[in-house]
Structure formats: C-alpha cells, structure tokens
C-alpha cells in the first residue's frame, strides 16, 4: 500500500534509528532526533522498534491513506485529527482507506513522530531509510517529503489500534530543560572559571537549531587557557587540529555560543569541544523549540550510565505495557 502526502509540513522526513558504521567517511548516523518517541510510536502500531516513520518539526503534514491501517503519533504535543475528528497522541488508532490525517498548531515540544503499521518501505541506503539530504541518502530519493509524494508502506504490524502509552512513561524536557553533560574531549582548553560558568548560566535555544545541531545563547563567553596555538590548528583559541566530533559533543566557536551536534552533524572539524551531552538526554534536545530555557548539568560517567539505564528501562516498561 502507499499513502499520499497532501501537505508536507515544514521539513518532514522519513527517519528510522539511523545509519551507524560510516562516520569515518563523513556520513553521519542520522535517524530520529527523538528516538525514544519513534520507538514508542513503532511499538504502538506493532512494528519493529527500528522501523521507519515520519519526523515532522513544528508543523504536522496532511496525509491521505489509500488502505486501512493503524497509526500512532508521539513526541511533541500537537492536536491530531482524522477526517477532522480528534485523536489522542501517544496512542494508536485505526485508519480507513480514503481518510485524511491532519494536525493543529504545536503546543509544546518540537517534533512529532508518525508511525504506520507496516512501516515506511522506501529504499534503504547503507542500511537505513533515514533521510540525509546533504548526502542525498535515504528518504525519498535522498530528500524530505513534498506534496504529492506517494510513500510505500510495508506489510505487518498491528491490525487494530486502541493502545496508549501511560502518561508517566512518556518523556519530555522540563522547564527549564536540563541537559546532562559529561565534561571531556577538549575540556582542558577552558579556564576553571569558564568551566564553572558554563554550568551556572541559563541558556536559551537559538533560532539555528536543526538536525545538524542546536545552538544556544545567553550565557557568558568562555575563556580559554592561554597557549601558543599548535601547528595546523588555526589562530583562534577555540581552534584545534581538525578531529572527529562525538555525537552530542558541544563545540563553542570563538567561545561564545555552544552548539550541540546532533544526528546529521558534520563528522569532524576544527573547533574544540568541551564534552558531550549524555546519550540518555539526546532525545530531549529533539523536543526543544527556539527560545526555550536550558541549563547544562554536570554529571560523571556513573551518573551518565545510570541515566542511560533509566531510559532503557522506561522503554522496556512501554514494551511490557503494550504487550
């Protein structure tokens, strides 16, 4: 079966859990910004957790179904309609051939995930259907969706809707959002005072926030330990000899505005990084709107691993709940 895109939304793309294994060639891991929400959506419609779904940012698409199926929408808070009638989020519901799925205005969060029983069955590139437009990989011929697209849907999945993820098992950023950071990488480039201030200051999400990275502003500029710049590094104290960037690493070009690298980030470059957001909190970034208040919270490795375990446990609970 296929479904038809009537309106694409802002930048709606097909995403699964990503394309690991090619980072050494400059091809990012890609995949859903909020993988927790995509996994939950897939579980709701009886798909494998890594099936491809739609990721829509700030604005929902309008989709017409050509065959009966089961749909679930998770992630951001955005009113859902089926032929104009309201449907609940974080829940699965039946759709009939000819019906149209639509969305109201975004209420909180940033990205919704739409899963359809059977999953989106576009052609995988390098083992993944995730859309990576810079490299023309995945998605529909390497691009996000547009009006008039007919997207193939696979076989299988749940035959009926009616399941729901309980409120206490859903995960979304608080206010202000707290993002836990493990200092490392080139942390040693910062003065002690700068290191403290980074965690003391309140930051806001800048307008430059997308799948490549999230920029933050509002905190005090960072000061660097003085040194003679090493050969090949470049003249600015925030420069290093170009190296790999970790997923979630925080670079601060010129010491002013931190940028957290996300799923479609460049794989390397010449800016120092002061550490990385812990793996458990990367999903939360996918739900941050511009102007949202954010605090970075310093943690150690054991706390990072405990948070990772908690996130995993929450997903298992959803799995058990949905049977």
């Amino acid at each position: 079966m296929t479904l038809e895109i009537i309106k694409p939304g802002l930048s709606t793309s097909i995403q699964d859990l990503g394309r690991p294994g090619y980072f050494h060639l400059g091809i990012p891991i890609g995949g859903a910004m909020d993988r927790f929400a995509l996994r939950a959506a897939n579980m709701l419609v009886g798909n494998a957790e890594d099936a491809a779904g739609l990721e829509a940012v700030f604005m929902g698409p309008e989709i017409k179904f050509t065959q009966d199926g089961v749909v679930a929408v998770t992630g951001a808070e955005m009113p859902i309609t089926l032929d104009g009638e309201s449907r609940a989020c974080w829940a699965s519901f039946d759709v009939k051939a000819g019906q149209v799925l639509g969305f109201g205005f975004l209420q909180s969060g940033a990205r919704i995930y739409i899963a359809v029983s059977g999953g989106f069955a576009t052609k995988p590139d390098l083992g993944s259907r995730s859309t990576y437009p810079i490299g023309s990989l995945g998605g529909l011929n390497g691009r996000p969706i547009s009006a008039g697209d007919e997207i193939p849907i696979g076989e299988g999945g749940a035959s009926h809707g009616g399941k729901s993820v309980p409120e206490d098992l859903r995960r979304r950023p608080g206010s202000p959002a707290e993002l836990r950071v493990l200092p490392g990488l080139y942390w040693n480039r910062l003065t002690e005072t700068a290191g403290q201030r980074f965690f003391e200051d309140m930051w806001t999400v800048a307008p430059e926030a997308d799948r490549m990275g999230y920029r933050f502003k509002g905190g005090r500029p960072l000061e660097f330990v003085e040194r003679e710049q090493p050969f090949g590094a470049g003249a600015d104290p925030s420069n290093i000899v170009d190296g790999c960037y970790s997923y979630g690493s925080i670079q601060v070009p010129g010491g002013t505005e931190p940028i957290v690298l996300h799923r479609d980030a460049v794989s390397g470059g010449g800016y120092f990084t002061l550490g990385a957001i812990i793996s458990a909190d990367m999903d939360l970034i996918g739900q941050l709107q511009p102007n949202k208040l954010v605090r970075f919270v310093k943690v150690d490795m054991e706390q990072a691993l405990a948070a990772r375990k908690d996130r995993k446990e929450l997903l298992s609970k959803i799995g058990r709940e949905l049977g």
Partner: protein
Amino acid sequence: MKTRYTFGGDEHVYVEMDEEMSLDAFFKSLSMSNAVREANIPGVTEICPANASFQVKFDPDVTHPNDMLAQIKELEHKAEAAEKRLSTRIIEIPVFYQDPWTHDCVMRFRERHQDPSGTDLDYAARINGYDSVASFIEAHHSQPWFVSMVGFVAGLPFLYQLVEREKQLQVPKYLRPRTDTPKLTVGYGGCFSCVYSVRGAGGYQMFGITPMPIYDPEQSVSYLKDFMVFFKPGDIVKWKPIDQTEYDRVTAAVEAGTYVPRIAEVDFDLEEFNADMAGTNAKLMEALNDT
C-alpha cells in the same frame, strides 16, 4: 608526542595523539585505529581516524567505558612497535586551478575574505612568501599528499602534504564561512587541502576544481559502483594541473562512464620518507607512470 585519552559522552573514547599536526601523529592515529579494528573489542560500532587523533564509538551496555578506554590504551604500545609501513595507493587527481566556477564563487563572497582586493590564490601565494600565483600553484601540486581524514560531510578528504614542516603551505579559513561552494572545489585551510565532495557551505580558501566526482550516492559513476565514497584515510594523492580542454574531456569521459582514474599500488615507509623525502616522493610519483 603526548597521547591524551578522554571520553566523548558515555559512547565515545577520544584519543589525541598530539596537539599539533605532523605525519608522525597521523601515522600513529592510523595504526592505532587499525589496531582497535583488529582487536574486535565487543561493543565497538565506529572507528574514525582523523588527522592527529581518532575516535571510537561503542555501546557502553556491552563494554564499560573505563574498560573500553583501558583496552584501547593497551594497544598504544602495539601501534608504537608496529612498523611504520602502509600498503596503500597513489591516485592522480586532475585539478583545473583558477577555473571560472570557483573564481565566480571567490568573487561572490569577497566581503567575507581577509583580502577582498584579490583572489584566494593571490592571498595564499603572498602570505606564504611566493612571488607569483603560478609558483604557489606549483608548490601545491609538485609534491604528493596524504589523505589524513575523511569527513566533515560525506566523502570529503582532508589532505596533508608530504613535505618538511618549513615547506608546508598555511592559510587561514575565510573570516566568515561562505554559504556556497561549488561541488568538487579544491580548497585549503590551516595546513590542509580538501576536495568538497558536495556543494554547500564552506570556509576553506578556493584554489581550483577537479572534474573527477568523489562521492556518488547513486553509484552511477563507473569507478564508484562498488562504493559511493572514493577516498579513505591513508590514500596518497598527486594533483595534476589541467586546463579547460582537459577538464571538459575528463567531464565528458566521466559522464560516458569511460573515465578511469590513474591509480597505482604503493608501499609507504615513514622512516624511509623521513630519511629522504624528495627521493621517497619521486618513487611514489613514478609508480603512477607505470599505470
């Protein structure tokens, strides 16, 4: 060289061989990342060598980060003891220096450049002490280069020239990055040359363009049918200056599916190179003549 081990969040170990760029640091990062690959440590998902560092991505649920770091650290002695030899290939990449397309882009973004009065090549030649653009271009292509890292965006190689430090060319990046760079631009920033694999933003100075695609997700280019990315770390490159006629000929041949890049298998020995750079380079480049 002082090796530094650190974590990038809970999923990466990052190893900096040295703060500064050198062939020794690059070689050590390449041999250590090879050693990590051969060690098959459970949980490792990505091994990414870079210019003077490398990164290992792993699943901390499989191997605890402290154990991962310790196991990688143990491989340092093995990498140090290993012969600094590399079986690799030398590739001739045709470059149309001062071509009309990058020139047009150079002029469009003049206000973001250190010296808006001239071109990127005028500026690069002057600050590196060359009396003409022609002699600077010759310095760029007369000696071969190592692909020291592939990344930034899909398939983009960073290259480091096989010459003494005094002879390394160095240029800063644009004051503010451009929003556009033609696909296959040969660029320069810091002590690295690069080839922009796709069109897009960029901050490197622009010297010319190659007609030879190096990234093809559709895999329709004849020599990219097996894999969509052309370069890998450790490749050696020799730039070959070409004019518009040759550029057009190669472009047509690529489109017709008949273009075959000139490639020769070579061995590179770091100690041999350090003892006799000119001689080692001459031998490397001679290998291309046998193809």
